[in-house]
């Protein structure tokens, strides 16, 4: 099966003072239809930059995609013109954002905002689009959609706004949905509802989802596969089950230890010391080495992503050897 999205060696750089520094360094990602890939990592690891690079929504000055390709529908998105890109945005690839409170236009009704994409990308008439907006609002389980389409965003609660955002994103039946921390601003019960909604929509439509989050609990709930990012690199990829059962990279392991779990005492939470190095001060060797408990002299050389099992890759030679030996 050819993947819906196939990112190869993507490097995105930002201008910091006078030099260009990579926020995302040579990452490979692919997602298949009807699959949810979770991209996990702490703040500054390059998750959002990866999503924004895919849609080419980075600021025009001060940021550039310097290498790599973003394969989508047989085309390399990095080579398309701005005009071709705007036909893909919202139509074939849609994105939902973190803040449902501010991601809707306060001066337009929710229905009009859902219909807007249909008018532009699908050339629907106003009445058709309004009818479809009502149907979509129903599909994302907003109660009383016939009345709610005429409401303004401030009349919606946070969870309902995020549902409205999802309806806007899914209006044109995209093949790929980029979800950038869509549940972070919601409380936990609403979060669970939105996640199961996304999961159902994915199955119904056979859509590919790239789900960006820093919350491993969310990952466990929604992801089929997981890519763990650290300092602009993918440090480990595995299926969701494998990653939780058998993490190989020390960073993944540390993340799991820092996550509260019902079956462990809260005191056993272990914070990861230090923070992600800034993009202008990345270490030469393994980027995680300064924070790693397993550091070896060989970590001074930059490791590459190596297979450690079926569909499981990690960027840590120290642990990979041990894993294979065991």
């Amino acid at each position, binding site marked *: 099966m050819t993947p819906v999205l196939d990112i190869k060696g993507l490097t995105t750089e930002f201008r910091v003072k006078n030099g260009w520094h990579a926020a995302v360094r040579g990452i490979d990602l692919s997602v298949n239809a009807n699959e949810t890939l979770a991209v996990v990592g702490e703040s500054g690891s390059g998750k959002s930059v990866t999503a924004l690079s895919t849609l080419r929504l980075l600021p025009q000055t001060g940021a550039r995609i310097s290498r790599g390709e973003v394969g989508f529908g047989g085309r390399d998105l990095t080579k398309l013109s701005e005009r071709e890109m705007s*036909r*893909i*945005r*919202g139509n074939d690839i849609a994105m939902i954002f973190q803040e449902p409170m501010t991601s809707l236009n306060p001066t337009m009704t929710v229905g009009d905002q859902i219909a*807007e994409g249909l008018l532009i990308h699908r050339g629907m008439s106003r009445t058709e689009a309004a009818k479809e907006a009502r149907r979509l609002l129903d599909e994302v389980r907003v109660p009383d959609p016939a009345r709610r389409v005429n409401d303004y965003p401030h009349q919606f609660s946070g969870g309902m706004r995020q549902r409205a*955002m999802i309806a806007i994103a899914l209006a044109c039946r995209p093949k790929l949905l980029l979800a950038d921390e869509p549940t972070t601003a919601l409380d936990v019960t609403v979060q669970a509802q939105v996640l199961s909604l996304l999961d159902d929509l994915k199955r119904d439509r056979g859509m590919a989802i790239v789900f960006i989050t820093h919350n491993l609990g969310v990952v466990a709930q929604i992801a089929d596969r997981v890519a763990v990012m650290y300092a602009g690199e993918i440090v480990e990829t595995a299926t969701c089950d494998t990653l939780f059962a058998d993490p190989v990279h020390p960073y993944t392991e540390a993340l799991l230890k820092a996550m509260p779990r019902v079956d462990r005492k809260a005191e056993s939470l272990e914070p990861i010391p230090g923070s992600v190095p800034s993009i202008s001060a990345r270490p030469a060797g393994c980027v995680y080495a300064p924070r790693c408990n397993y550091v070896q002299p060989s970590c001074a050389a930059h490791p590459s992503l190596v297979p450690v099992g079926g569909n499981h890759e990690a960027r840590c030679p120290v642990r990979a050897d041990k894993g294979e030996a065991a």
Partner: protein
Amino acid sequence: MTAMPAPPPARKQSALLATLNRNRLSWVGIGMLAVIFAVAIFAPLLSPHDPLQQNILHRLEPPSAEFWLGTDSYGRDVLSRLFHGARISLTIGFLAVLVAMIVGSTLGVLAGYIGGIFDQVVMGIVDVMLSFPTLLLGLMVAAMLGASLENLIIAIAITETAPFVRVARAPTIAMKRQDFVEAGRALGFSPGRIMGVHILPNILSDIVVVASLWMASAIRTEASLSFIGLGVSPPTPTWGGMIREGFENILSAWWLVVFPSLAILLTVLALNILGDALRDAIDPKLRGEE
């Protein structure tokens, strides 16, 4: 609740009315404007005499039962001329501000949204225009174009475009970073659509407030230009023109200067009161709680 922007009130109109009600003075301004606009619209019906009819037998008569506000040096009725002058002043004030608002806001939104060199060039021109006193700039343009109603509107519109560019640009820059504008780009909306449908309606209230304040200024500029003879040519009655003609006889016929001056004063005052009230209505800091 601190990180969240204040949710707009359930109904914009009722919030506006509530704020206007809180400040009684704003109703005075609205009432005065309503009267002035009514006078301008119904001037032919309200005027007791023909504003252009000269009468050598009634030159420079003080206010009387027949000529309520007296007559000028050609024997024309001051009250009738005042009513008809309202038409000219309000037309020029309204149209000049409308033109300035459309041109200025368009440039301001474009400059704010596009940024870069375009922004720098536009704002450079705006700064140069703002460094001229309004009257001087209007005087130069009016003198260049020649005196006529259209040219006066153009001249005043040019002098008042720059402030609208500024007023539209700053909130556009703030809006550009809003999540819903970013989301619009992610949905493949064209820049024109984002500016026109998503940014402009959100900054329109700022622009309208400034428009009401600058309309007062436009009326003042029109009167000033008419006073120095660059306005609509006589015998068409304009407030500024009436003051200019009355100025020659100010010591013997005070009514020629006082009444048109009062008309200008009251109109400008009413527009300023309205502008302040509108500004308070949309400013969340001043809106506050009861």
